């Protein structure tokens, strides 16, 4: 989860109140965030991914200050007109079609503020921006650029600029292979014949989103007072939200917000828009979910502690423009609950009588397991994810269903045989005492066109005896014991496979259906697994048996 690092002095000033450490800890936790550490003047807080607006000192302090009742209600943000324009060329429509922009003036940038701006940008890139895929953010010093700005796409071999922290000019294409940031994010432009760029009125390149800014005009310094901010991506609403999170934070830092005209090929948009959105709410619905009996007024007061406003005339809740997570009035319900205090809800259990019931196949299987325990067998518990190499090269069976992307070496497929899993376990227990008499109950996967996923899953039981004198009689006795206790009869038909010794193996047949195999494991297979004692084994399809009984 993303964390935000707060300067305690700045934070307390923003909140407007100093709290004792234990109060601070408790309140942070009950706001739905997690205090990670306080060290000296540095506070680290974990933010849940639904609240990217809290990923800055300003955003977090704003929410916190409302929550503790210091500065409640909707914050108003003024916007003046800058009269400047950003032209969005139609060439970007296939690469990165949208941008949302703003100007913030009169910020006294010092080391601390520069750090804060960089933090906001980085945290939003990673979380809300999905590692720049969804949103890429650029911040530029106004003194270095001249409006209007153009957002356009061009053949990356034809555009040259000096990227941030680089020593020489490169083409857009070279950035992807020669600049470290280019290598990290280059995949986001993969397969594009044209790359997106921002340029100013003098044709100076500002940046190549979502990769990198220009070194000359794309870096905020202590001389900077005014900044131009752009967010680019694929969904204008998402970009506008992200821009609002940044602009409101800079505004809380003391900046003044100015709007820009975005000239799209087919429309004009004035950006940013910091007006709250309006949401209807239903007092009954809220009370039903929470088990409370709140009046409309009380709801409004509670929501004001979460930064919401209220439109008295239309009786609607005003949702702050930087909130990206309020989709439904259920989201208001949660914020009301947080403001009310989770700790203040009493615990009640309704008198609802229901009957507990175990899965039928699970209880059937458990009865068989009990019989095996009575026979002094030891239960093992193998993974569903197995090694295809063991299946093919050692067990000499056909290729199992493969995973496409396993990170764990030797675990690249799903189980195709319980016996193979047991042999693998026996191979890893060679240092232990014999006899080894084990069983396991698990899912076996096979292809089947009848299933929606194309894969059938069946519960199977396997038993394996591994000892000097393990033989067919011993294993058949166990199978007999199970069937006679179930008061049913099975038949065996001879089987010839690579897994078993010829003439000592068979298929288990019940009511005409094949429901398993039994036999002495072929010495070649034992040798492949490096098992040094004979193994007799059976595998029984519990799903099928349970269905047939």
């Amino acid at each position, binding site marked *: 989860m993303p964390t935000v690092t707060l300067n305690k002095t700045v934070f307390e000033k923003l909140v407007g109140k100093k709290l004792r450490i234990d109060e601070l800890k408790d309140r942070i936790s009950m706001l739905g965030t997690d205090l990670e550490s306080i060290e000296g003047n540095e506070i680290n807080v974990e933010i849940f991914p639904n609240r990217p607006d809290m990923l800055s000192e300003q955003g977090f302090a704003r929410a916190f200050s409302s929550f503790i009742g210091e500065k409640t209600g909707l914050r108003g943000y003024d916007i003046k007109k800058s009269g400047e324009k950003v032209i969005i060329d139609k060439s970007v429509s296939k690469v990165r079609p949208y941008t949302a922009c703003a100007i913030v003036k009169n910020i006294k940038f010092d080391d601390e503020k520069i750090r804060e701006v960089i933090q906001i940008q980085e945290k939003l890139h990673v979380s809300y921006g999905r590692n720049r895929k969804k949103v890429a953010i650029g911040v530029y010093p106004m003194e270095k650029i001249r409006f209007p700005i153009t957002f356009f796409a061009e053949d990356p071999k034809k555009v040259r600029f000096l990227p941030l922290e680089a020593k020489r000019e490169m083409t857009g294409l070279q950035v992807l292979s020669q600049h470290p940031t280019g290598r990290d994010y280059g995949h986001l432009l993969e397969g594009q014949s044209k790359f997106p760029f921002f340029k100013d009125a003098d044709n100076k390149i500002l940046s190549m989103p979502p990769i990198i800014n220009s070194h000359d005009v794309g870096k905020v310094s202590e001389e900077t007072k005014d900044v131009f901010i752009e967010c680019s991506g694929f969904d204008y609403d998402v970009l506008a939200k992200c821009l609002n999170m940044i602009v409101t934070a800079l505004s809380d830092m003391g900046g003044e917000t100015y709007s820009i005209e975005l000239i799209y090929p087919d429309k004009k948009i004035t950006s940013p828009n910091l007006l709250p959105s309006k949401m209807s709410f239903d007092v009954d619905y809220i009370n039903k979910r929470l*088990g409370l009996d709140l009046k409309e007024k009380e709801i409004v007061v509670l929501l004001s502690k979460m930064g919401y406003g209220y439109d008295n005339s239309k009786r609607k809740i005003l949702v702050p423009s930087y909130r990206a997570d309020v989709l439904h009035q259920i989201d208001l319900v949660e914020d009301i609950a947080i403001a009310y205090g989770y700790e203040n809800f009493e615990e009640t259990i309704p008198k609802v009588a229901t009957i*507990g*019931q175990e899965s039928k196949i699970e209880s059937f299987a458990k009865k068989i397991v009990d019989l095996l325990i009575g026979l002094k067998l030891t239960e093992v518990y193998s993974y*569903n*994810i197995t090694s295809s190499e063991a299946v093919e090269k050692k067990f000499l069976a056909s290729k199992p269903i493969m995973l496409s992307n396993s990170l764990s070496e030797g675990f690249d497929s799903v189980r195709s045989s319980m016996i193979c899993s047991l042999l693998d376990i026996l191979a890893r227990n060679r240092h232990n005492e014999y006899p080894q008499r084990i069983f396991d109950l698990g899912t076996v996967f096979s292809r089947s066109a009848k299933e929606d996923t194309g894969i059938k899953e069946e519960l199977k039981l396997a038993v394996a005896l591994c000892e000097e004198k393990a033989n067919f009689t011993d294993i058949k006795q166990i199978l007999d014991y199970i069937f006679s206790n179930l008061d049913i009869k099975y038949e065996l038909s001879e089987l010839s496979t690579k897994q078993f010794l010829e003439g000592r193996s068979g298929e288990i047949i019940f009511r005409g259906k094949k429901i398993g195999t039994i036999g002495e494991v072929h010495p070649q297979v034992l040798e492949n697994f490096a098992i040094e004692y004979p193994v007799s084994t059976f595998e029984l399809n519990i799903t099928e048996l349970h269905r047939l009984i």
Partner: protein
Amino acid sequence: MIADQLHPLERKVIPFLKDNVSFEELMEQTKLKDVEVMRALQWLSNKDILTINKSRREMIALDDNGLLYAKDGLPEMRFLKVLNKTPEDFVSLDDIQQEAGLSQQEAGVSLGALKSKVAISTENKDKRLFAKIAPQGKKILEKESLEEQFLNKSFPIELSALKDEERFAYDNLSKRRQIIKLDSQLIITISLKPKAEELLQDKSSLSVNYEDSITHEMLKSGNWKDNRFRHYDIKINVPKISGGKRHFVRQSIDYIKKVWLELGFKEMEGNLIQSAFWDLDALFVPQDHPARTEQDTFYIKDPAKAKLPAGLKAKIKAIHETGGDTGSRGWGGKWSEDEASVNLLRTHTTVLSARTIANLKPEDLPAKFFSVNKVFRNESLTWKHLFEFHQVEGIVIDPNATLKHLKGYLREFYQKLGFEKVRMRPAHFPYTEPSLEVDVFHPEKKEWIELGGAGIFRPELVKPLLGIEVPVLAWGQGLERGIMQYYGFDDIRKLYDNDIKTIKEVKIWK
């Protein structure tokens, strides 16, 4: 009475007990085997009748060559004796070797030793070596050497008891190959304790015939009544046995299942391989959510895609794009059917909850379900990460359910698991609103520990599946961490490395 507890072996030993009697003497007197005497003494010592004193002494014994030489004579003497048969002639080394029955090495060593004592003279002819006895040699043959005398003693001999000339012979012989060996011997003697007196005075009690076992014969004939049965030392260790046993993780699963069943919950079933549609889209997880990335989720290579349920597909698409008929705004953007069709190993058992809700009819409510089952995360296997583990999950589908009830159910559930105090904090999960983090107070550690998550399913999840919007209380937790704590494992892989010895020996889940 001590006499009642005596084992037959003890009875046989007791008459010969006296202070400082040695283990060997007891063996000889009782005609018992060494292990039998040892066991009897150990038991008597346990009964506080005697003390066993153990000490060590160095004993000299003959090694392989020593035994041979004691019989046939030392090689150099045999060498010399052969030459003495023809005192005037040079004899070839090969002939000497053959006649004296020496190995090549023995012959070589003897030659060197005899030459240095001037006991023989030698000459080379045609590259062969010849030897003849010298006057000094004859002198040597006249009387038995110290070494020869030593070899003829009866062994073992205690090292510290050697006289000077014996010590000289011993030193010489011990330099040579495998003639002498030194054994460190354990000397066992006993000393009697006060209780022994009582036992030894009343010898009559020893003569009573005690039976060791109750036999079928005795019971049939009824003559068990005439017998006295020996008392056992019930505190003595007995050999270990092991029986059949469930795997310890399965034991804990059974335990948690029982808790759910007692609370009136029904067990959910379902496949491990699911489409992203059921695992994520139906749960209103946005299609660009990080959980869908290759790093987190196992995808199936072939068959890579699943068929999606036709009717529900359109509903879920609408929910994601616009919120459909739920009153939600949805996530916006385009919902991709292709993205939703991919097959994966389920990332949570919440997919079972979704499918269970989809199969319910309004008249089935209220209903409660649970699952304790496997989920998957694409991680490398390390001491703290598994790629496959269990999730414990329960849902309550009840038109009248509230956040207060959720808190009530959580307390009841965690109390059943042994945690008296439960606390809840706001949290975030993509498919619940409100969402809570559940902390329980650990009675031994005396601190709050994070145990699981909970919440009420979002309307965007419930409405398309059930047809109506009903609150669904949901909560869950991982299983493995608790098991690790219980067994004191510090490597999570140990839970599933299936070491048969560990499975047999670990304590049961209580």
